[in-house]
């Protein structure tokens, strides 16, 4: 797609929007990045802290292997080059929620460089500049009942973070949203992060400016970094607002990037506006230098290859394959690919099944229902995929009805027993034997003379009633198709 087709025109000004994103993602590791404290959201303030994450005098960080592995996996998923040697640096700035007075981050030797993320069904690619590791800060609390005091909760301090920096490749607010959604899909799929924007486990800043085309001349408006966008809706709204604002500013003041530089604005969710926070002059000098407390990390190629095999097929490709291979709908494929474990469960259950689509339906309704009710992941689900396959096949081959299958499923999910075992133990298999079915039909006809008369008088609803009686008599086990055929034959005097 050529760049010019992405240009827009408003009141005679031809312009294009240029957006780059910095996405921060908290990792789902057991421990914090540099100490043994548990890594978990929330909790009683300052209950998950130690000398290291509190930055007490004399304490030293030790890097978590899970952080490094998570970063490598992410880089591999984004097609980045994984560095052979990487190191940490100190980013120095002062804030009450940053107890050491510096953040351990990465500056000039990030763990992953380059790569791309496809958006718009592969029609567009957004370049990845780098992925680097760092630690999160604490949280300042300003309580209404204590107007003269502020508090700091250090529980979040030291939570492992990845910062994913994109190239300025996005040309609309929608593309920016698609990019962040794409990052979220991959991180969730690989179980690197839960990417919950409300809890802040995925946070996004965007750099945006406009390229103004005036004939042959090209101007760039000052770059604005937008912070505090806490939802996908906010990302879109902030970028739309900022585009309009920059366009108006260009019209009235013709300020350029060269003249003004970069500034930072915060998005206000309530007003839908961005507000100036910092101009270029006020920008911090972070005085980066190599973190002397941590040794540079050599990343062996064996580790990279081991982790590459764990990445495997990525969600976008898997989605397309599931649709093609199993005839699934867009929605079903998308939902199954929400996590690697979920799609893996589906594929195992579907392999050798007569009806993969039915398997998908069962997973998306019944299995997900159980997972939601119990608040568990598919990996802790009691029934292995082959049990679900057996259950669905039992319906297909007429051993049980769809209705009884739900009862069997409930017990499977509770006990982890094989469906065939449950069917046998509880005598639930369908009666398909004609002799047995005939005996049931005879006994129903004998007991319902009035309905038989009604039917023969042409009242069709009587057939439904009699059929219901057959199912009742057989405690639901009569094969409904065979039973209906026998009943009709008998009533019609054949």
């Amino acid at each position: 797609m050529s760049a010019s087709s992405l240009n827009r025109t408003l009141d005679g000004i031809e312009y294009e929007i240029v957006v780059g994103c910095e996405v921060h993602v908290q990792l789902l590791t057991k421990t914090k990045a540099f100490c043994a404290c548990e890594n978990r959201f929330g909790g009683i303030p300052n209950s998950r802290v130690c000398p290291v994450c509190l930055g007490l005098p004399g304490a030293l960080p030790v890097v978590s292997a899970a952080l490094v592995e998570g970063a490598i996996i992410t880089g591999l998923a984004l097609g980045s080059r994984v560095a052979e040697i990487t190191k940490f640096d100190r980013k120095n700035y002062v804030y009450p929620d940053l107890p050491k007075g510096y953040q351990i981050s990465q500056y000039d030797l990030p763990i992953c460089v380059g790569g791309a993320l496809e958006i718009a069904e592969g029609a567009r690619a957004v370049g990845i500049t780098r992925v680097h590791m760092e630690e999160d800060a604490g949280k300042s609390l300003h309580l209404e009942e204590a107007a003269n005091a502020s508090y700091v909760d250090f529980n979040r301090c030291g939570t492992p973070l990845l910062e994913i920096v994109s190239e300025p490749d996005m040309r609309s607010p929608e593309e920016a949203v698609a990019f962040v959604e794409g990052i979220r899909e991959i991180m969730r799929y690989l179980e690197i992060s839960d990417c919950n924007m409300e809890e802040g486990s995925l946070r996004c800043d965007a750099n945006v400016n406009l390229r103004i085309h005036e004939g042959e001349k090209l101007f760039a408006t000052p770059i604005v970094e937008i912070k505090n966008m806490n939802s996908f809706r906010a990302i879109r709204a902030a970028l739309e607002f900022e585009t309009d604002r920059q366009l108006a500013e260009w019209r009235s003041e013709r300020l350029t990037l060269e003249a003004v530089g970069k500034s930072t604005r915060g998005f206000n969710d309530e007003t839908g506006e961005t507000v100036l926070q910092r101009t270029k002059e006020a920008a911090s000098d972070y005085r980066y230098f190599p973190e002397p407390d941590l040794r540079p990390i050599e990343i062996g190629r064996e580790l990279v290859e081991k982790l590459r095999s764990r990445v495997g097929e990525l969600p976008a490709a898997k989605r397309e394959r599931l649709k093609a291979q199993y005839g699934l709908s867009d929605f079903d494929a998308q939902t199954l690919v929400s996590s690697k474990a979920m799609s893996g469960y589906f594929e195992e259950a579907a392999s050798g099944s007569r009806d993969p689509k039915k398997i998908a339906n069962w997973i998306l309704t019944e299995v997900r229902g159980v997972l939601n009710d119990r608040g568990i992941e598919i990996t802790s689900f009691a029934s292995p995929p082959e049990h679900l396959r057996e259950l669905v096949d039992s319906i297909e081959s007429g051993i049980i009805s769809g209705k009884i299958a739900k009862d069997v499923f409930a017990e499977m999910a509770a006990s982890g027993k094989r469906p065939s075992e449950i069917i046998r133990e509880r005598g639930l298999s369908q009666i398909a034997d004609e002799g047995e079915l005939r005996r049931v039909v005879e006994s129903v006809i004998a007991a319902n003379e009035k309905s038989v008369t009604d039917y023969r008088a042409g009242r069709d609803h009587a057939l439904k009633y009699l059929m219901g009686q057959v199912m009742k008599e057989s405690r639901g086990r009569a094969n409904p198709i065979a039973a209906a055929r026998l009943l009709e034959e008998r009533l019609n005097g054949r």
Partner: protein
Amino acid sequence: MITELSLSELRGGLRRGELTSAEIVSAFRDAYLADAKKEEPLGAYVEFFDDSVALAERADEARRAGEADAPLLGLPIAVKDNILVKGRALTCASRMLRGFTAPYSSTVIDRLLAAGMIPLGRTNMDEFAMGSSCEYSCYGPARNPADRTRTPGGSSGGSAAAVAGGLAPVALGSETGGSVRLPASFCGLYGLKPSYGSLSRYGLVAFGSSLDQIGLLGRSPEDLAVVFAAAAGRDPRDETSAATDFPAARAVLDGAELPARDFRGLKIAVPREFVPEGLEAEVSAVFDRFVRWARSRGAFVEIIDLPILEASVAIYYILAAAEASSNLARYDGVRYGLRAKEAGTLFEMYERTRSEGFGEEVRRRILIGNFVLSSGYYDAYYKKAQAVRALLLREVARVLAEHELILSPTAPTPAFKLGSKVRDPLAMYLSDVYTTFANLALLPSLSLPAGLSREGLPIGVQLTGRRFAEETLLSCAETWRREGGGG
């Protein structure tokens, strides 16, 4: 007298039942109390632990009950006030940390406590270990036992004054650029700065993290070997600590004698840059006498050119200040220590807290550090200093490939008068002219008492070895102690 005995002699006395731990600790406590009453007390301790005698009595009980398997049970040690001992105050001799109690123990202290040692108290120091005279202390200076009008050296001046003044048998200090060896030289002690990585830095308050090491001060090489062996070893809480084994030192801890090194064939390099024409005559005389002694024992002492050494003080003060500016950013009044009152805004609180809490020298180094790291100056200062450090590492390694030791005076002068350099930071910085290269090059370095000036002031000589060759330094120093050190 108990207070004049070495740690090893005290250990022997305990083992033979001639002494009790309570007697030992009481003797040092009484000496401390007596000294404190003097007109010009040594100022070695900022706190002598009240409960040390009680801890000693408990150690005696354990020994009587036959539970004396801890190798240093009941032996006391003084601890510099920048090494955390759980439950004790810790200030780094700074107003900034007034009221701070250590919530955990440093790894080195944990290991010494496990070996049975008893901390006697916290020793005086230059604030945050920045200084060479122990005068930049919020408690006032420590004094040199050899001449109380003079400095004991710094920054571990209190530790040196305590050991030399008979207030402790052995002490922990810390080094970033000579802070153990300089006081050892000024006070006539043996002082060891281990290789970077030999002792865990966990629980040592950081100054220049790529240079910092806990060090030891004592009256004999054997005393240093014993404590070093008990404290050394890889610490999973410090990524920069090394998994190196020191079997000879460990054997001394287990009761063997520290072997003396045969000097025959020992190749020693003396950098010309460290024995300049203008070297003070008395330092030069003591140094020459040591060289003659080493040669007489069969060592090959060769004068070599190592011009990169002339850059060591400059790059040291850039790199140490840069790291310090970051390491000391955490003292902001938010969580612990001093918080300035009556600040209107957050940044006013920061400003006032740090202006009130830090002394002038600490503020100076923070400013230097922030300057050399700031954009626009980073390349000219920090980055260049890092490059020169890498070059220095290579050049020194080249010399040590051919020679086993680098020999030099420890300091350019004997102990100077209190007050004589405190207003002249550059003159003060030059006290470290021979020591900083070992920190920059990550090498072990030991100062031994080589002689006295005409005024009776101790003068030290410094042995620097290959990385993790602490045992070589200790054994060479032991040879000197047995053969010449007494004379």
